């Protein structure tokens, strides 16, 4: 199980990093999503991988899984979800306003439009 989870995190991170390094907004947004999936699973695993154990106190339980990483992951999911929405809107706005979805800003565009 460790190998499976570790390689899944690794592959998602690698995919995310590759996509984030693209120069168009859509792949970059996808890459950010991959990175946030990877980090969520990673955070989940920081409480150690345990199967079939409750996170909260229960009379019948013999052992527990660490509940804190689950709370952390929940926070991280909410934040990354909101951030994805923000970056999608921003990317759309930039595309509609300037007619290009390139991430980089060539110097001539900055020279033309910039008020600096």
């Amino acid at each position, binding site marked *: 199980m460790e190998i499976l989870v570790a390689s899944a995190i690794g592959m998602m991170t690698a995919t995310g990093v590759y996509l984030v390094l693209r120069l168009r907004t859509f792949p970059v947004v996808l890459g950010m999503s991959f990175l946030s999936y990877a980090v969520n699973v990673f955070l989940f695993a920081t409480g150690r991988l345990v199967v079939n154990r409750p996170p909260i106190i229960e009379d019948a339980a013999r052992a527990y899984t660490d509940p804190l990483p689950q709370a952390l992951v929940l926070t991280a999911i909410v934040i990354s979800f909101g951030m994805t929405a923000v970056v999608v809107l921003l990317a759309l706005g930039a595309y509609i306003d300037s007619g290009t979805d*390139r991430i980089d800003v060539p110097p001539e565009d900055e020279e033309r439009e910039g008020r*600096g």
Partner: protein
Amino acid sequence: MMGHWIIVPVVMPAVVAALIVLVMRHDLVLQRVVSTAAVAALVGVAVALFANAGTVQAYRLGDWPAPFGIVLMLDRLSALMVLLTAVLAAVVILYAIGSGWDGRGRHFHALFQFQLMGICGAFLTGDAFNLFVFFEVLLIASYGLMIHAGGGLRLRMGVQYVIFNLAGSTLFLFALGTLYGVTGTLNMADLAVKMGTLAPADQALARVGAMLLLLVFAVKGALVPLQFWLPGTYANAPAPVAALFAIMTKVGAYAVIRMYVLVFPPDSAVTGTLFADLLLPAALVTLALGALGVLGADRMGKLAAFAAIASMGTVFTAVAGFTEASIAAALYYIIHSTFAGAALFLVVDLVRARRGPLAGRLVAGPAFAGRGLVAALFFAAAIAAAGMPPLSGFLGKLLILDALRTAPGVAWIWGVILVTSLVTLVGLARAGSLVFWSTAEAPALPELPPAEAPPPAPALALVAAAAPLVALVALTVLAGPVSRETGAIAADLFARTAYIDAALETDGAKGMDADDTGEAH
């Protein structure tokens, strides 16, 4: 003892922001009044917190015992930073109102209050994961503020800024996960205790986590090689927003000081002097790059942005010393450079608003109205930014040079700081003489964008732009008491036990409580 007042700098802006969005989103005047009143109240609370921060106090949310619950920690460092934020916010909000920037898009005041909530929270929290959450709060608000008033280029620069910081946030989570996996805690004080008793097998992993964390703070603090987001963002952000962002880079510096003095101090068995050794060259390169950027900038916004990078280089150079004296000097310089950076951005905006289509281009243009007064303000801001006497930048740099006198590589440190001061000075002088002294017919520039700014800003904007300069004069006059105070703050930081005892409610804290009541009598 400050009791519930400790959480006011976080809760009050949050409530005010929500009220502004819900109740008064169509009434700009009402927004201005409420927002300004909230900032004024924040200044009052910050002063009270600072006056009572002599002993470290913990505020347990939900009264959960440490280290299980979340704590806010009030010590003199966080109180100082909250006070600095509040004063800067007061200046910025007056400028935003005076120049009309807040009316050029929607929700300026709500986002502004959310930004204050995030910044104050980041300074007050005693929990590493909460630091992440407050970073996100201040970043989300800053994304909205950065693209305030819109425009294609500003949006595109905003996309870069958001993506860079999202990547930083992901890295932050990886770092926190690694540290939690090793230590099983995210309370900063508890982390500091656990680092001391870490099994040798886990030390390498903790080092990796600490290194990732440093990268995150370097992104926030615009440390080379992670500074790429700053020039485009700051140069294209609305001026009051860029001025407020002067404190955002300081959040990175604060986080480095807090984490790497408390949790990973240079004498720690886990990390040793690794971070001091890495920070120093990075800081010196940052300083050099900022100075060269000031010299080579083709626009005033870029110039101010690179001056901000240079000031962060200076701050991190002092921080990298990791001694009481150098941290004290860094804190003094943080206060100075926050106001100096803000002043520069505001004055640059005054120039842009008055030069019509030429805006911030560093080319000679026709004379413009009110040039003398704006030139005087720019002169003062430039003196402050370059660190020339008589303003506090000079004293700050002197303190830093003095604190690092016995540091290894002192020749490099002194050389870089002194040469970059000269380079910055030349760059600022060049900009000033081009904009204010040379006059020429407006050069034929192709497709000049329509002027974004309204007619020259009224008196309130001028007063607000001059206010940080007044603060700098005060900082210069009161250099003695202020540097004694920063010295005491640095001594507190290195003592560590008071903070840890207060956070974890160990016996020391109870003893200290008794001492405190004794003092009160």
